[in-house]
């Protein structure tokens, strides 16, 4: 499974979730897959997607907040996993697309092949932790993780793209990304009925 295939499984399951994206290919691939006002695309500040999402989740406990993170980003801010464990936001789902490389800078290796990020999440106190390797497993687990209380940590092992991808950059300006995400944060929660659609 590659990043695009993983997103093709998860994105159709999203309704009013607020999704904070890590920088690099994760933002860009998701933007090209399906742009939503409730998507925050972090273009710089590597490592901080989970911190931004936690800031949203703690202040909007009635809304589900999802992080689309990467292994390089998680490794850069492991303290964030500890703070999520310490604060226990039940509305937070941390999805990590783990390709074991820094994809945007030329596939230099990270250390996630040697160190299990999901075990760090478990030790930090996430309520629900799972690693998936196949599309079939992802389909079942993603649905469960988006429905049940967390904080949850879903590690998806994906293949790195061997050849350089020609993938478009985010076309919105950063202030526009922030403004529409802020507006999405203020929206009322969808009824549970519409979530079943």
């Amino acid at each position: 499974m590659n990043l695009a295939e993983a997103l093709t499984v998860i994105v159709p399951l999203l309704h009013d979730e607020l999704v904070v994206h890590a920088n690099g290919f994760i933002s860009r691939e998701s933007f090209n897959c399906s742009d939503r006002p409730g998507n925050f695309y972090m273009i710089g500040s590597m490592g901080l997607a989970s911190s931004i999402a936690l800031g949203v989740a703690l202040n909007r406990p009635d809304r589900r907040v999802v992080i689309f993170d990467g292994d390089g980003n998680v490794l850069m801010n492991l303290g964030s996993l500890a703070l999520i464990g310490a604060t226990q936001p039940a509305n937070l789902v941390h999805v990590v697309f783990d390709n074991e490389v820094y994809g945007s800078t030329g596939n230099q290796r990270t250390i996630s092949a040697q160190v299990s990020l999901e075990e760090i999440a478990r030790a930090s106190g996430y309520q629900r932790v799972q690693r998936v390797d196949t599309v079939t497993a992802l389909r079942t687990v993603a649905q469960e993780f988006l429905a049940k209380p967390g904080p949850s940590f879903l590690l998806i092992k994906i293949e790195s793209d061997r050849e350089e991808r020609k993938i478009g950059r985010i076309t919105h300006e950063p202030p526009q990304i922030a403004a529409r995400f802020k507006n999405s944060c203020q929206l009322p929660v969808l009824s549970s009925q519409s979530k079943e659609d």
Partner: protein
Amino acid sequence: MITGPDFLGLLRESGFDFFTGVPCSLVKSLIATLEERGGYIPETREDAAVGLAAGAYMAGKQPVVIMQNSGLGVCLNALASLSLIYHLPCLLLITWRGYQGKDAPEHLIMGDISPTLLETLGVPHRVLSAASVQDALRWAVETLKESSRPVALLLPPGVLQ
């Protein structure tokens, strides 16, 4: 000198309602008051605190990030590539260690360059004194509203009890 509870009272009156950061002995009484009353999130790093504040702001809060000026170095990229370019305001309450060259060696260089660093970065700032806390907060609130970007208050020793 102003007490921790009085300072927190002024911050709250000014509309600030989300507090995070990494401690410094110069803000011991403020953090103790925040912890007593609940609602302070102890971050692990200053850049993560800036990220947390960015999320809190988009969720409708007026955030304060408390840090020592050593942490200003840690969060430069978070300010430059997140708060400043996305227009995500927060109040940075930065203690000024190495003030006037009198402190432990590890604080001297950062103490010397803290105001210049903020200027270079484009973060407007004021230096707090016990007599000017209310004025400084009024200025901070107005500047946050006008610029929609972070502003900083530098807190030298001897201001907060």
